[in-house]
């Protein structure tokens, strides 16, 4: 593990009661957070920390916290626990610790917030949304249109050096994934019953067989794309019959999953789903089957990032420097296939799950290896 050089600007943090894996997670979080420079002290480092974070789920966790407070009354103490006690005298973060709550809690402590000896409420920390870091106002970069389904698995060439995208929350547009054509497709997928969708002139647009994962398309991509972007298109859904698709009709066949994925991205059209929040975490339940779906821009990177651990859209843009509209399209496409977890009151089964216990800790990637991997990626992409 690379040890960060100590720096007079660093805010030193000590951890107590954590194994190497948990410490590695904190190190990664500190590295990802650029507004302030936090540094987790190594074991044996005798520098005085500004804050001590204690995992109190161990046998003597609370006793250690109280002992530290009695010996060093000025020391700022932050606890982590899977079951925070409402009457804790120290601020407590619910585990799994999220960046969205960790840094506001640290900021609060450093600014003289909930101090030891004062009840801090259930969560302890004042939870404030972290607004995405907006650094360099980049000039508008060209939007790469999603390729048509003609060659869905063709890898996208590795992009040239990219500018830091700008995410301005006030400019984010939203869409309702339960409305319009996408909403109808979701109903068909959910109910697993065959259906056809007709337009206002009773022309058949789609014939769908969710049990067989099949879709027959009787409209071209441009027509479907324009329908996807209408929130209230004149569409109807009804049960199919054998005469719906004449033998001579020009049709295309896709898997229903491919259609849903593409319609999710077209419907989003650079907008964020109403069901997602810019600062709330999302996670992939599984990778999309990207060799058989339209390869959206940055889809492989986004899938790798969001399968690894939950991250908010704001954090994802910041960490991967992806264009927000590409991220929003990817999220919409993944959500259309039911591949996303996020916390909503309506669907408690879809809540973000704690980090799996069988995950090993990713080692920090040295710069030389990153460079090597980047060259290898470019080589593979160009084959």
């Amino acid at each position: 593990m690379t040890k960060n050089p100590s720096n007079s600007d660093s805010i030193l943090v000590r951890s107590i009661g954590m194994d190497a894996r948990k410490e590695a997670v904190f190190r990664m979080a500190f590295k990802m957070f650029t507004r302030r420079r936090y540094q987790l002290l190594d074991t044996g480092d005798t520098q005085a920390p500004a804050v001590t974070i204690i995992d109190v789920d161990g046998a003597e966790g609370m006793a250690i916290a109280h002992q530290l407070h009695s010996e060093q009354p000025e020391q700022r103490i932050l606890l982590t626990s899977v079951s925070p006690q409402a009457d804790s005298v120290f601020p407590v973060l619910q585990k799994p610790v999220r960046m969205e709550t960790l840094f506001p809690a640290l900021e609060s402590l450093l600014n003289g917030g909930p101090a030891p000896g004062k009840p801090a409420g259930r969560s302890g920390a004042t939870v404030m949304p972290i607004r995405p870091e907006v650094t360099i106002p980049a000039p508008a970069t060209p939007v790469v249109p999603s390729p048509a389904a003609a060659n869905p698995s063709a890898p996208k060439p590795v992009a040239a050096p990219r500018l830091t995208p700008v995410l301005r929350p006030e400019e984010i547009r939203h869409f309702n994934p339960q409305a319009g054509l996408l909403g109808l497709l979701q109903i068909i997928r959910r109910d697993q019953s065959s259906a056809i969708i007709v337009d206002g002139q009773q022309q058949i647009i789609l014939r769908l067989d969710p049990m067989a994962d099949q879709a027959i398309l009787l409209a071209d991509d441009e027509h479907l794309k324009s329908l996807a972007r209408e929130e209230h298109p004149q569409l109807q859904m009804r049960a199919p019959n054998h005469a719906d698709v004449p033998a001579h009709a020009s049709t295309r066949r896709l898997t229903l999953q491919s259609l849903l994925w593409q319609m999710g991205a077209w419907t989003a059209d650079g907008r964020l789903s109403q069901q997602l929040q810019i600062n709330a975490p999302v996670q992939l339940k599984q990778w999309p089957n990207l060799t058989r779906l339209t390869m959206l821009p940055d889809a492989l990177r986004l899938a790798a990032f969001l399968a690894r651990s939950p991250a908010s859209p704001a954090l994802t843009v910041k960490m991967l420097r992806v264009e927000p509209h590409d991220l929003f399209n990817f999220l919409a496409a993944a959500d259309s296939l039911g591949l996303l977890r996020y916390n909503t009151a309506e669907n408690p089964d879809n809540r973000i799950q704690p980090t799996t216990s069988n995950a090993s800790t990713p080692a920090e990637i040295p710069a030389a290896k990153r460079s090597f991997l980047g060259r290898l990626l470019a080589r593979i992409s160009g084959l």
Partner: protein
Amino acid sequence: MREDNKIIFTGPVGVGKTTAISALSDIPIISTDAQASDMTLNRKGHTTVAMDYGVLKLDENTKIHLYGTPGQERFDFMWDILTTGGLGLILMLDNTRPNPKKDLHFFLHAFKDFIVDVPVVIGVSKTDVQAQPQIADYASMLPEVTADLRMLNPIPPIFEVDGRNKDDVKNLVMALLYSIDPGIGDQS
């Protein structure tokens, strides 16, 4: 300084490992095939009895060694040797085999020490011949199959692949690289 790295392709007999390596290799693949003499004969006439070997060159001094393990379980004694210095594991599964879940379990456990430190990606072949299990089924199997394993990426990519399709193979490898570091495409 010479830099050598490995990507390991594994999976059961006839799944398409040799073809996948051929799609990437800069040299004609060095394959130690032999006439199959046992039950393997039922699936293909020739099979890899030691390993397949291909090379992807980044520059004069940097090569990526592409190794394909034998598909037959009796050769698993050599897999530890193969994996030393590996970047990751590409596990290819054959959807027409009688019990793909058993294969998934076998190969992930055979490489259990390797995949603690490196990512695994899973390619499922012959889904055009046998549609079940689907990709979602494999994803559902994973928690049970890997319950006693530690993995760098517990939610690995699972893609349908055809080893003859270069784009499929490229996507598998690119997913492997992004699983090591999702930030590598960001060259700013």
